[in-house]
């Protein structure tokens, strides 16, 4: 099962995403932003970082890259796509997901382990979670404040397109505590927190059981592998 990970100039977490895919049992395939060949992968991850130095707007220039154009085209045909942090910003700039992401309410870059509630477990990337499951994964961003028009927010709520909500405090001023979204088809998911940093015991968030034992991020990647196998 091949899952592509696109590297843009300024991407940081591409190797972490590749490692997460490997730990979940998939084969990571490195993809390059300037190349419109996605190498027949079964799913794509747009990883975190600061593509093109966050120039113009976070994700705006990456949304124009040849690899992204191909992701947009194939997402329309059902290709599973996960955008993490900067990847989420690229997805909204590509109009694969609605709304926008602006600087955190209190101006500060936030880096912490963040509790989330899984609101929608019917997507390509969340089907291994229970509905309303509470998970803990790292969050690290400066521009993670989710905004959208009242009309869009109503649509997101009514159609159950909010996949994750922040719990125990909203870290960045996101409207309706939105941490992540999906599209109507459920194949595209974007979120600000980083599941790929919580996939291996010893390297994840602290839990009640043991230090750094949190691996709640692993299910994102297992979900898409399971879906691709069943398809």
């Amino acid at each position, binding site marked *: 099962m091949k899952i592509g990970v696109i590297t843009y100039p300024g991407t940081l977490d591409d190797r972490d995403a590749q490692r997460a895919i490997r730990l979940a049992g998939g084969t990571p395939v490195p993809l390059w932003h300037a190349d419109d060949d996605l190498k027949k992968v079964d799913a794509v991850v747009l990883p975190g970082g600061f593509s093109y130095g966050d120039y113009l707007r976070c994700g705006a220039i990456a949304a124009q890259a040849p690899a992204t154009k191909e992701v947009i085209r194939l997402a329309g045909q059902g290709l599973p796509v996960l955008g993490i942090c900067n990847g989420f910003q690229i997805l909204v700039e590509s109009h694969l997901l609605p709304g926008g992401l*602006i600087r955190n309410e*209190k101006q500060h870059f936030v880096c912490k382990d963040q509790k989330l509630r899984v609101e929608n477990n019917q997507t390509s990337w969340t089907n291994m979670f229970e509905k309303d499951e509470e998970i803990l994964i790292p969050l690290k961003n400066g521009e993670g404040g989710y*905004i959208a028009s009242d009309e869009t927010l109503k649509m997101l709520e009514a159609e159950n397109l909010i996949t994750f909500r922040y719990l125990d405090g909203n870290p960045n001023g996101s409207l309706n505590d939105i941490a992540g979204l999906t599209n109507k088809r459920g194949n595209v998911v974007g979120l600000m927190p980083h599941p790929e940093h919580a996939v291996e015991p010893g390297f994840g968030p602290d839990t009640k059981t043991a230090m750094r034992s949190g691996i709640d991020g692993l299910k994102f990647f297992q979900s898409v592998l399971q879906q691709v196998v069943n398809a």
Partner: protein
Amino acid sequence: MPKIIVEIMPKQDLLDPQGKAVANSLHRSGQKEISAVRIGKRIELHFEREITDKDLEEAKTQAANFLSNDVIEDVVAVTKED
């Protein structure tokens, strides 16, 4: 040098955290009569030749679709300067 100037502002009803931080700083330096600050962008597109109406039309399209994001920003003006 002929240029097209694109001016972009964050939407009126949106919180502009950058503007707010600058306003707070201005207040601390004694300028309490400034009620708010909003910070936008000015983008210059330079040309080596005279700018045509077509260039201006193309710039307006790029301003709406790429240089700004209509979820969070408004294009205030796209103007030609010789």
